[in-house]
């Protein structure tokens, strides 16, 4: 039986080309295993072999993401792999992002499975965990000795077509896939068992881990609010009547930006909520109850604030993924900054 074909993606450092000074090299391809690929060779044994190694500088990849992805995928495709291994990247941010981006492109465009390895806090893990089985590794290359056997073992499992177990069983970073199964005990019993274990100080595993939220340093206080341009942003779904952007009532896939120049009051004729997670009656009658345009207009007129920003931003916070919310927030914040907004009031329902 012929061996399964594996292509390995690594950076310039592990590709033995050089360190940071060589981070600007474009992708190249070598036959057979290179660097950590040698260690994989031992784990893959007679069943699979690394037929080629694609190497790219971390900076080059990061600075030419689209071109880099296309080139790397083309090189990988030429070797007709049954599986692709990227990394392990440990906690190296650019490398992890490159390993993840390659995984995304390979899995989506070539429909070939990808095994990678990263430290859970590597940004590449968060961004691309859906596209690869990313084995959880230590935060630096000293963890190579543990990472390679774990990744290799999982690679063989996938190549053989064996069933891959849960992230906890197999040691990979959760891909965010929910799988149904029949539990032996009913939910109430499992919950109470967990509580008892917790009270006893014993180990227990939640069945529904909460998303991880980051923390940011508070911004300095606004020095003079009477000169400040104030922006309004809401997750309460306040939109112009008719919801022109069709923001979804739950799991919103977008946010809206709406002009309120000259608007002194939101009314049942002009605005409504698109939110499907709370009783909309009160907001539909008077959306100022969620987005206080009326009083901010008054305060603007009285000189209590500098001005009310011409646009407000809205999305629906109902069941919306944290990752989406984070993306909307980054875009909205950038626009507000570009528009010279000094401070923002966020309202949530």
């Amino acid at each position, binding site marked *: 039986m012929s061996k399964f074909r594996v292509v390995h993606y690594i950076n310039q450092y592990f590709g033995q080309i050089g360190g940071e000074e060589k981070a600007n090299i474009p992708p190249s391809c070598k036959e057979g295993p290179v660097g950590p690929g040698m260690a994989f060779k031992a784990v893959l044994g007679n069943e699979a072999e690394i037929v080629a190694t694609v190497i790219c500088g971390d900076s080059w990849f990061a600075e030419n993401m689209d071109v880099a992805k296309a080139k790397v995928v083309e090189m990988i495709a030429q070797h007709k792999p049954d599986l692709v291994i990227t990394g392990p990247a440990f906690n190296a941010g650019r490398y992890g992002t490159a390993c993840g981006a390659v995984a995304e492109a390979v899995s989506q465009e070539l429909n070939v499975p990808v095994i990678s390895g990263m430290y859970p806090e590597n940004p590449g893990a968060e961004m691309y965990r859906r596209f690869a089985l990313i084995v959880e590794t230590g935060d630096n290359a000293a963890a190579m000795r543990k990472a390679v056997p774990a990744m290799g073992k999982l690679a063989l499992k996938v190549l053989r077509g064996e069933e891959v177990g849960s992230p906890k069983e197999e040691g990979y970073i959760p891909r965010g896939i929910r799988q149904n199964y029949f539990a032996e005990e009913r939910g109430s019993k499992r919950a109470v068992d967990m509580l008892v274990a917790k009270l006893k100080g014993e180990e227990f595993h939640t069945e529904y881990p909460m998303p991880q939220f980051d923390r940011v340093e508070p911004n300095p206080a606004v020095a003079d609010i009477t000169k400040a341009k104030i922006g309004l942003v809401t997750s309460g779904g306040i939109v112009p009547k008719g919801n022109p952007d069709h923001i979804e009532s739950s799991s919103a896939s977008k946010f809206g930006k709406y002009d309120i120049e000259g608007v002194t009051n939101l009314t049942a004729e002009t605005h409504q909520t698109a939110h499907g997670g709370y009783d909309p009656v009160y907001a539909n009658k008077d959306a*100022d109850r969620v987005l206080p345009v009326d009083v901010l207009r008054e305060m603007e007129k009285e000189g209590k604030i500098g001005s009310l920003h011409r646009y407000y931003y809205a999305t629906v916070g109902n069941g919306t993924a944290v990752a989406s919310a984070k993306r909307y927030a980054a875009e909205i914040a950038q626009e507000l900054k570009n528009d010279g907004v000094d401070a923002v009031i966020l309202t*949530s329902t």
Partner: protein
Amino acid sequence: MCTIVPISLTVGANRIVPTVAIPHPLGNPELPAEEEKALRRRLVTKALRALTTQVDGQTVFED
């Protein structure tokens, strides 16, 4: 500005002003219109005060 303060604390907001109720954080439909607006103005004033207050970490502006 939010009604469920623990959520705002969980997601990492730094200046938090508690509000009235989930479906009408900045209003109270049981009040006459004028009083309701006065209530909203008090809450917004509090939010503006929060923005002009230096904070070291997550702070809930109770009153």
